[in-house]
């Protein structure tokens, strides 16, 4: 028994920190946090909207049991509200509008009735209040000394179909509550950030004679043609340094993965299988993972770039048609029913190339477009369930999924 127990401990330690093992943090053990609204401007609808956004963001950082009561306080009161006196932390904020119609926010964090942290924010248009909400949550997380949630401040780019052969490309915050249409008219799909700083992006235009990959610099709004191919053209991944792209092209009617060098403008064919090879993702410098139909159904494979060795990565799921890689982790979408006549279930799963575990990340509905954050701390995805759509954030190390309702029509593709 002793040996068994020590073995158990040893295994637990060996896999601690591996995201494919479920981490169960009891909600009860998290410190409690209440939010007090001390706003002096704006109507109650806007106050409530901001409160909800902030509570959602504070939930997503997964450090607190966040109290959902919208209570009002006086910003200068040195004591927290009586109702919140037993809370471990109290966050108080004041929204105020200045003479330039800008939204000013003062925020104070109390711990045991003492001010431990405070900061001011300002934004010149109140309609982008969600960015301040994200910033407050980010700062609280930093203050608590937790690993960065820098992905909260990153932007999501996605395309949505608005009518047959018509789409829009949109830039949004990570909850998609702020949406800015950047390209409209025609059929423009598969947007992909071109660099880490998110100052440019690639997308596919299907309005030209051949599907064409284009590059947009957001600052100058200049558009460049990169490369065209008959049949199909998708930029599936961009390397860390932004110098290499993994493209899916079909130069002979055959969807295959190509490595494109943005400096030399030369490309090299990586896969040659006679079926479907798509969705290439860089995995380190010398390996890619991709989706292939080489077993008769879509599944996840890896290919070494030096010796061309192909390996099947996933042995579970009836059809695994989409994947995203980060470090040694791969998240993929698996169809768990095979039915042409009724709704299918598509769930997300996480694997690591260093363990044999598979972790199912979602339980119901159609879950699509999984994309890792740049640091691998979170996964963003779209969930469709019972005719409702939501954007989801999976905190891998906290074993929590957060959903934000989405009213944006049919999403075609997304990048984070």
């Amino acid at each position, binding site marked *: 028994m002793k040996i068994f127990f020590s073995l158990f401990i040893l295994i637990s330690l060996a896999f601690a920190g591996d995201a494919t093992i479920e981490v169960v943090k009891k909600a009860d053990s998290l410190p409690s946090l209440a939010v007090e609204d001390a706003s002096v401007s704006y109507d109650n609808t806007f106050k409530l909207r901001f409160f909800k956004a902030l509570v959602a963001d504070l939930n997503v950082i997964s450090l607190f049991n966040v109290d959902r009561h919208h209570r009002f306080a006086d910003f200068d009161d040195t004591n927290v509200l009586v109702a919140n006196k037993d809370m471990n932390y109290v966050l108080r904020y004041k929204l105020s509008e200045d003479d330039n119609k800008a939204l000013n926010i003062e925020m104070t964090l109390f711990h045991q009735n*003492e001010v431990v*942290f405070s*900061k*001011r*924010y*300002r*934004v*010149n*248009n109140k309609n*982008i209040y969600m960015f301040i909400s994200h*910033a407050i949550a980010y*700062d609280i997380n*930093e203050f608590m000394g937790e690993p960065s949630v820098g992905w909260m*401040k990153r932007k999501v780019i996605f395309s949505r*179909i608005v009518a*047959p*052969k018509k*789409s829009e490309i949109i*830039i949004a915050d990570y909850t998609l509550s702020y949406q*800015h*249409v*950047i390209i*409209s*008219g*025609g*059929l*423009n*799909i598969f947007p992909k950030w071109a660099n880490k700083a998110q*100052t440019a992006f690639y997308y596919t*235009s299907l*309005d030209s*004679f*051949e599907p064409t990959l284009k590059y947009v610099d*957001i*600052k*100058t*709004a200049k*558009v460049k043609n990169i490369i065209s191919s*008959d*049949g*199909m053209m998708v930029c599936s991944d961009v390397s860390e340094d932004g110098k290499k792209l993994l493209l*899916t092209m*079909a130069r002979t*009617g055959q*969807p295959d993965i190509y490595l494109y060098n943005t400096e030399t403008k030369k490309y090299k064919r990586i896969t040659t299988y006679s079926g*479907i090879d*798509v*969705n290439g993702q860089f995995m380190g410098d010398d390996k890619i993972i991709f*989706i292939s139909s080489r077993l008769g*159904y*879509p599944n996840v494979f890896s290919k070494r770039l030096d010796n061309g060795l192909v390996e099947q990565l996933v042995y579970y799921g009836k059809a695994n*048609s*989409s994947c995203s890689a980060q470090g040694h982790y791969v998240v993929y*979408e698996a169809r768990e029913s095979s039915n*042409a006549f*009724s709704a299918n279930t*598509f769930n997300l799963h996480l694997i690591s190339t260093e363990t044999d575990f598979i972790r199912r990340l979602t339980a119901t509905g159609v879950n*699509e*477009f999984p994309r890792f954050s740049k640091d691998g701390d979170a996964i963003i995805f779209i969930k469709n369930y019972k005719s409702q759509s939501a954007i989801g954030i999976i905190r891998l190390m906290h074993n929590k999924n957060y959903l934000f309702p989405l009213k944006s029509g049919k999403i*075609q593709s997304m990048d984070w």
Partner: protein
Amino acid sequence: MKSIVLSSVVAALLVFSGCSTKEPAVDTKTEEVTAPVAQEVQEVMTETVTGENAQISSSTNNIGSNELNANAIESKFPTVYFDFDKYNIRPDMQEKVDTAAELGKTTAKSFNIKLEGNCDEWGSDEYNFALGLRRANSVKKALVADGVDASRISMVSYGESNPVCTEHTRECWAKNRRVNFKLLP
């Protein structure tokens, strides 16, 4: 059709200043968050053909009637349907492909043929596009086998972005798994 890059934005939406410490010090710095500027920018490049270049000296056909002609012939082409998650040509569709090949070699022989592959809503982004493309490619191979010159055929996949039916029913999904024929001059 041209697309317009609406505005340039969002870069540097949040510039973070102000540092935080665990000391109960009050940070008095104000963080500036700039709003996205909705500035109008240049349109995507388009080509303008001058009036004299646009005129083609031909006694038999002018552009207008040629287009009319193309639409009329195009409507004679069948639609080829496919099974769920499949791109092989079903036996019951072979006749339609033969009809299309015959049209391609006779009535439509002065046009190039563009094959548009489409999918139902099941399946995800890239793989669905590839499936649509393989459907178009299956039809292309069949046309070539029936004697249509391969150099006249181009292909595009619209994945699930070009549905003819948007209800969530099996009949509807079946209608969307298809290849359409378009004629190009």
